[in-house]
């Protein structure tokens, strides 16, 4: 009997979906453990630039600006892969949402969900958050508001530092965000993340980001939009209009009944997206080490 060579393309759709879920969870866990400060360091770059501009000082090449440039460069090439697979806050959100949904299923209750219309409006809130923080930094007021940053609290807890006295406002905001993460997948990333606002204003090359072959779509099927944490209607192949809110989480890939969704630059890879994900993560880790996170 001839043994079939193991090949991801030969797996059944169900198995492939499982493989993708576990692969993503694994990458998220590794990045959470190793590069949990990538998000705060990159956003530190944004704050640093605003502070220096406000003080009339030179913007020098520091660890923060390096982290910002590195992540922005990565995002321009690969889309918001960082958000979908590597960001500690995003992974936390996925974890909290997953746990909440599982608990609801166990109790046979329908999980609460945010109204779709609200979500569309709330998506612009992150630009406002970014603008407010940038202005506060520019005016030099931000350092005085130290206790109210939920990211500081998060990274303190993450670093095993529990001296949270004076951080009550930040802790309350963090708890509110966690509650939001329960009722809406990627609540923070989509509505509040100021770094996400920066990323979604970047031009993303269409080569490695998700798109769909519109011609073979089943009429009136919107399985991908329904599965998407950002309710995105994916662009057609060859389009340069990569949606700014797409986290490249690739959940839509396995949802499409016709397997129409793929990265534009991997036409020949159909069914083997997992390898491509591994390669991207490898490149991401290399970038992280190179910029010294």
């Amino acid at each position: 009997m001839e043994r079939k060579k193991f090949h991801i393309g030969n797996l059944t759709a169900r198995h492939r979906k499982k493989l993708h879920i576990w692969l993503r969870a694994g990458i998220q866990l590794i990045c959470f453990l190793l590069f949990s400060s990538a998000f705060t360091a990159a956003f530190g770059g944004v704050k640093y630039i605003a502070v220096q501009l406000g003080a009339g000082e030179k913007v020098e090449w520091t660890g923060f600006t390096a982290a910002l440039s590195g992540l922005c460069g990565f995002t321009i090439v690969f889309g918001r892969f960082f958000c979908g697979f590597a960001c500690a806050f995003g992974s936390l959100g996925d974890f909290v949402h997953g746990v909440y949904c599982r608990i609801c299923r166990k109790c046979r209750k329908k999980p609460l969900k945010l109204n779709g219309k609200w979500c569309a409006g709330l998506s612009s809130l992150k630009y406002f958050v970014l603008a407010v923080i940038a202005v506060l930094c520019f005016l030099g007021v931000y350092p005085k508001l130290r206790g109210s940053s939920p990211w500081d609290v998060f990274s303190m807890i993450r670093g095993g530092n529990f001296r949270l006295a004076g951080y009550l406002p930040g802790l309350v905001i963090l708890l509110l965000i966690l509650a939001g993460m329960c009722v809406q997948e990627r609540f923070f990333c989509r509505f509040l993340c100021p770094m996400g606002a920066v990323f979604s204003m970047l031009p993303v090359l269409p080569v490695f980001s998700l798109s769909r072959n519109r011609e073979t779509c089943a009429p009136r099927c919107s399985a991908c939009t329904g599965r998407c944490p950002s309710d995105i209607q994916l662009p057609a192949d060859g389009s340069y209009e990569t949606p700014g809110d797409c986290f490249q989480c690739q959940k839509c890939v396995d949802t499409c009944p016709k397997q129409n969704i793929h990265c534009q630059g991997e036409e020949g890879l159909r069914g083997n997206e997992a390898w491509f994900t591994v390669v991207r993560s490898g490149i991401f880790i290399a970038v992280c080490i190179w910029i010294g996170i």
Partner: protein
Amino acid sequence: MKGFGIKAGSLLGVVCVLAGYDGVLAAREKEDEIARLNARVEAMEEFLRSSPGTQAEGETEEEAETDGVYADGEWEGEARGFGGPVSVKVTVEGGKLAQIEVLSAEKEDQTYLSMAEAILPAMLEAQSPEVDTISGATFSSQGLKDAAMQALEKAEK
């Protein structure tokens, strides 16, 4: 394509503005430096002209060695940074802070530590550990500052 073009254009714009801003500041710094040096040269010429014969006495600056409050030697101190203990070594020479170096900071995040290390030259310049922490790397720089303070407590005469 249009959206992509707009985004690419704005990104390029932001980068150019930042580069230009830095360039202007660098040029201004250079001009200030030149003006300062010119003023010094003029002052010296003036001095030489007004008192020919006498040797330039500019060098007799008061070097009244105040001997400082710190005893010479190498002093080590430790304090809590962001993720764990950080320790520094302060070298005192001639009663002055000559060098401060980080001995260990294993639990600190490298990016943050590299930012926080900017506090070391600031302390040398101020000849005191009482300087502002680095914004953005508050915990790590506070740790370095506390460690230096602890080291200098031992060095106090």
